[in-house]
């Protein structure tokens, strides 16, 4: 019962990756099983929880809902690519300093989604932050410190805008 395989070529965190995968393999599974990048976590495999969020061609993606073969030629970014060597990204550092994680299982998904948000041209307000990050589930933190962390990173990166007065 050997399934036919397809070769996928893409870049992951700037490195060329080539893998022979079965067509039904998800991109998340390819990253974890073929590329050895286990930082992308699977929380539900229904596309609801967002733990597996990565950035594909500049857009946040639930990697459990995308087939690996769909990533042919794509530029993929995962949590392992956020830090510059020993230096954490401002967002990673803010999660650490503001206690934006507890068990850490959902954290890679939040980091990738927030990284994408912080790279968009529009400024980040609290409304926008909550709107975007309500895509993902966290069961430990109650979100308060995730909001604090992303806010702190946005401020440090010059991306923060106070909300219009109510």
């Amino acid at each position, binding site marked *: 019962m050997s399934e036919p395989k397809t070769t996928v070529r893409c870049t992951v965190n700037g490195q060329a990756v080539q893998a022979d995968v079965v067509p039904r393999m998800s991109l998340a599974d390819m990253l974890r099983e073929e590329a050895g990048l*286990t930082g992308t976590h699977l929380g539900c495999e229904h596309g609801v*929880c967002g733990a597996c969020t990565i950035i594909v061609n500049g857009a946040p993606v639930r990697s459990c809902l995308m087939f690996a073969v769909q990533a042919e030629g794509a530029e993929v970014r995962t949590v392992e690519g956020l830090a510059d060597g020993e230096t954490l990204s401002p967002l990673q550092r803010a999660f650490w300093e503001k206690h934006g994680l507890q068990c850490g299982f959902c954290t890679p998904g939040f980091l990738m989604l927030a990284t994408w948000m912080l790279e968009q041209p529009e400024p980040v307000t609290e409304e926008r932050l909550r709107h975007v990050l309500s895509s993902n589930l966290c069961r430990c933190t109650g979100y308060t410190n995730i909001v604090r962390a992303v806010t702190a990173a946005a401020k440090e990166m010059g991306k923060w805008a106070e909300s219009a007065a109510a």
Partner: protein
Amino acid sequence: MDAPLTWIGRNIPRLEDPALVRGEGRFVADIAVGSRAVVFLRSPVAAGVIKAIEKPELPPGALIITGEDVATLKPIVPRLARFNYVPIEQPILPRTRVHYVGQPVAAIVAATQREAEDIADQIFLDIEPEEAVVDLDLAAAPGAPIVHPMAPTNTIVEGRIRTPGLEAAFAGATVVELDIRSRRQNASPMETRGGHAAYDRASGRVSLHASVQMPHMLRTGITDCIGMPEADLRVVAPDVGGGFGQKMSLFPEYVLLVWLARRYRSTFAWIEDRRENLIASAHSRDQHHKVRAAFDDQGVMRGLDVEILANIGAFSCYPTTCGVEPLMALAEYAGPYKVAEYGAHARGITTNTAVMAPYRGVSRPVISFALERLMEVAAKRLGLDPIELRRRNLVTQFPHRTPTNMMLDEASYLETMEKAVEVAGLPAFRAEQAAAHAQGRYLGIGFSVINERTGYGTPAFAARSMEITPGYERVEICMTPSGEVEARIGASPHGQGLRTALAQIIAEETGVDVARIRIIHGDTDRTPYGWGTFASRSLVISGGASKLAAAKLAVKLKRAAAVLLQGEESQVRLEGGMALLPGGASISLDAIARTVYHSAGPISEKIGYDLNEAATYDPEGTFSNACHVAVVEVDTETGGTKILRYIVVEDAGRLINPMIVDGQVQGGVAQGIGNALLEEIIYDADGNILTGSFADFIPPTMAEIPPIEVHHLATLTGASVLEAKGVGEGGAIAAPAAVINAICDALEPFGIQLFDMPATPQRVRAAIRTAEETSP
């Protein structure tokens, strides 16, 4: 570099985090990559007789294991030493009958999970269905279908208490009766269950890495079922993605994984998917309480009489047993209130549903929901302000003995409530509420005062008559020859930041920087026997043992320093990695460590040949407490509730790392809000689960959870050697009551009182509809 004056009470960024924010954590699914995969075929019917399991042709290397193949495995049989407890046997894989939808019936092994799932789809499972009983009240009623023949009334555990003056307390009193319903929930850690069992051919040992909270207990339980030497199994809890109680229990899947590894001398991994987790892991809080309370004309509660039913599912969870919910409710119903006369009758009822297991707070979210609804309803009946009614009934004299013989240590029930009233700005809110109402908007405020029994050792568990009595924790501490400190602990943290908090405690005692302290946990080969992490216990008990062990190490270091510096031991101070004498003489702890291990001669006469110490701590327990306030707006068109503000005033005694404490509280509150508004596992009448994804069972997102403000009071108690109290569960305990009280306050113009949680939009709308139909 200035040494800090103290390590306790500082917001040290967590030692756990750098790896986790880089995606370099090691969760069990990460360890399992590439291993042969196990998938479980689960029963599609709630009750029935297995007629046939027809296997398809298998590809090379694949296996199907059924109950017949593992007939030698002993069932899981948790026990209570009580006459009114019926031990029931949970088979690892059943041979004759299934008892709930989701029960594992066969294990399929293949090279990958995908291939194993394909094989599972091809198995023809012939089960002749029988009548299932799912609903708690139906199962408890006379004549209900019987789940297990040895329990003909479906009652598996029962407890009663009645103080002599109960009846008299109700005579002539204002009697308030409530019917409280809590719907079934799933703790839903973001990481599901999973295990990776690797056989080592050289030693014959199996290493099981598993996403669990109690690795030592799991090891004992698994080896008992298999009948193998316990020493031949190593259980490791690697990074664990949350547990909240769901990962305490021994599950058949883990027994089977270890059996497979030994039987086939190979490595196997099972990673649960979310649907399995929602259907077949463990559920909780499916309870029905009937509450009667007697108040005198001063508003003092003279008597409380409760009837408690808990749906314990198809089997009893190990090791806590299914007594965990009903017996905790019986023991702790009085909460922070003075209850002079008390009666309770608690029953654990078995049904054809998934197994009940502890979930953050266990029964206390339901108890506090009942008590805090009681305060509101009774205040209305008595014509009193509900805050004033609480003032008249909260315990203010300590220690206080409850009707069930628990001793409440020093706490601040009244003070936290008064502070919460002040922070919430109650009079200003009432004005805002009236103004909003004039515009057709419905705002409400809700209060909830709770205590939380934390850090309890064997005496408390022994009172529950558990055959297996958890409670103590041991910490073995060692300074290496290079001066780092290693502490091996029996607790098993999985997100609580315990490594950081214990390092702070040890740093405080020894003067060693936290960066040079390693906390080793979750590995039965490397840590002393212990009970793991649950029940708001680890900081108090494992932290207490850490303090005691570190203090002993400090004595050794001072003694060694006194020899080396030729000074007085009593005058040596440990600080900033140094041993210091008043005259200015000093020596680094690193140098002391090298000398002790490598130049043992003269020092060994004073301190021996090592820098190892250990301590065990087994406290009676200490109660933390809090008052929560929720401010909500209810949309009367949709029944939806939006939380506008959430305030917690809590008292956990001395805070070791306030940032971590706030995080625990905030996380608990968010789960409590989910419990109050959204989360409900729903079965149909035949026992099929209708909520098999996070699109149906709905944990709250950032859109539903407001910023959670946390304020602290600090009552220092001798009941804990750290003067610290536990905080793991309080957020989840208090939040449902605060939120639903707030909804009822908002809907006061409709005269609506809700006693059923979660207060979903459907339930709120139904209540509004009924109120509109019955009002003129």
